[in-house]
């Protein structure tokens, strides 16, 4: 993981977007897709391309929950806290996983293997409670089953 993209990587991203303000969020999304988070250096480069102040770019980026400002772990474990998941006990799952990994939501384990996140709703409510590991959706979860997928991933 680097704190900066190469010039070629930036060029590739920028070439898909016009240097107008409405490109800001799509560019930030592309940068995050490439480097997995937004470093101060990357935000500065985006600001320069769009001729906006860094302050302005940072203000927009921090408004949206999607953007991260620290490198994530190798695996991202997301626990859904949507309504259906909540009434079916997702709070317990989050708490159990949090205890197991020794981190609170938003943090990454010390060895850099997992980042724990809470999500407002995945829209897979019929399978509640839902846990998503990287891009795989697991339905009808329990604390136990979640511990198991963590062990299997480690």
């Amino acid at each position, binding site marked *: 993981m680097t704190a900066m993209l190469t010039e070629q990587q930036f060029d590739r991203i920028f070439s898909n977007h016009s240097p107008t303000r409405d490109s800001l969020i799509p560019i930030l*999304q592309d940068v995050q897709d490439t480097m997995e988070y937004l470093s101060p250096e990357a935000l500065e480069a985006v600001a320069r391309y769009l001729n906006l102040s860094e302050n302005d770019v940072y203000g927009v980026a921090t408004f949206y929950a999607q953007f991260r400002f620290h490198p994530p772990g190798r695996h991202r474990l997301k626990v859904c*806290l949507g309504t259906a998941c909540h*009434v079916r006990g997702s709070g317990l799952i989050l708490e159990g996983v949090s205890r197991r990994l020794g981190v609170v939501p938003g943090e990454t384990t010390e060895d850099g293997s997992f980042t724990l996140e809470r999500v407002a709703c995945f829209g897979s409510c019929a399978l509640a409670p839902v846990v998503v590991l990287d891009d795989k959706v697991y339905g009808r979860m329990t604390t136990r089953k979640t511990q198991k997928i963590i062990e299997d991933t480690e």
Partner: protein
Amino acid sequence: MSFKKIQEQANLEWEQFTRSKPLRVLIGSATCGRAAGSMEVMQAFEDELNKRSLTAQTGVHEVGCLGMCYAEVLVELTGADGRRVLYEGVGPGFVPTLVESHLVEGNPLLDKAMAVMEGEDLEGVAHFSQLPNIQHQVRVVMRNCGVIDPARVNHYIARGGYSGMHRALSMTPDQVVSEMTASGLRGRGGAGFPTGVKWGFARKSPGDVKYVICNADEGDPGAFMDRSVLEGDPHAVLEGLLIAGYAIGASQGYVYCRAEYPLAIERLEEAIEQMREKGFLGERVMDSSFSFDIKIKKGAGAFVCGEETSLMQSIEGKRGMPRSRPPFPAVSGLFGRPTNINNVETLASVSAIMEKGAQWYQGFGTEKSRGTKTFALAGKINRTGLIEVPMGIPLRTIIEDIGGGVPGGKKFKAVQTGGPSGGCVPAQFMDLPVDYEHLAEVGSIMGSGGMIVIDEESCMVDVARYFLTFTENESCGKCVPCRMGTQHLLKTLTDITEGCATPEQIGTMRKVGDSMKKASLCGLGQTAPNPVLTTLRYFEDEYRAHMEDRKCPAGVCRALITFHIDPDTCTGCMACASACPVDAISGEKKKTHHIDQDLCIRCGSCRQACKFNAVVVN
């Protein structure tokens, strides 16, 4: 190519899809299906067919979601006799048996079959339309979900798609607006404003550049209707947007979709490409003088962006904060131009209305709430999933007949409609007709269509606190009533669940909630107190039990409960002891276990682990 030619081609492809190969396998593969393992099931089918050298005569296809999420993975098989049978709960291990029995020998497996989709009756298996959960449904928005392959535009066209746009182009834009007004369609995003009237405002607004936006930022936790439609039938929504663009005189459309829906975005991108190839997008749509294009904008995870003025700020590349209205978007919206914004379900209804006519649509629903509404049924209910019913249907029909009631013989307590903006409808209103007016009468709202069923094991104070945690977190902070109001309500609710609030605070909560409704800038703040106000209205006794007796009647609020092991039911299996994260449970094999109350953190793991219901809550 003329539209007629395009239709002929599409019909040919549809024929091939339905009849060309003697055997066919359809697998429901929307997000829900995939989470339940549909991709593994598909692989198993391909392997098995390959092994038996049946690949050449069998068509294997992905389809969208039929809405019966509780029964995933759903597989539809067509054998040599042409009969289509739907199977539920199919896992990869079961595939060889299915192929052998149904496809090779022609004997459908009766015990796993859920319904006959088409063809001769099967003993003991109902016809799809006669299933208790299907017979009350009317599918307009979901007309193609689970029926067509969503990645193929020709399937959509063969089922009547784009003939609505074709018809619209033979009318003047004003006539299209009138048709929409006559249909009685009301915005399905939550507020229920008449769609035709809204279009009329944007149409009449002066300006040579106008925009139409499809709001696919389905942010309500507990709602997934829009996702299913976008994944199962993206063209139905895009055609609606195209028609809206023509009606108001816009040349650019946007779809603002949540980034949390990657499959929906993929399907939309594919669909837009196909529209371009068919000449339904770009210069001179369908050889008319109308030109139109569509861009996809991915949301970045802010609930408030479901509010129209915030959404437009977000498209413009700014922080998604609402602004006061007027001016309304129809006058000054995106980039300061007249803009019309409709949600996914509204637009999927628009394409159906233009195809079949306003008169046809008026045949569904009630006088003031025309048409059908989709609901995402989840929570404590047997048949979770997506349903579409005519407006005005009794709540009881939805919960009992379609949803199959509450699991485990538990008592139905309330249904939460409208997500964080809505309220709880208690059990005494089971016969309430579900439409805009009646839901408002009991203090809730239609909202976008989330319906979360709550049973006796859920604490209403905890439910209210859950929603306030959400809205407090998502409040953008621009206006004081919402920013401070959500904080205050959440603090009080937390105090109540922790047993440190006094009954006088009930009055304060009502007052704060009332001020928020009156003074907040946008819908988020105006509706955020609803979950508190409705639970207070119907479940004040539960609030009082927390405050006066320091008790949580449902046994949920941790500060007010203790766990015990019932010696008569405990079998001494040790399951709870090994599940306990803090080693608070002692006991030997085959002897009653005991919970040390000083060590217990009341996480409920033991209760979840016990197969004998021996862990009781006091």
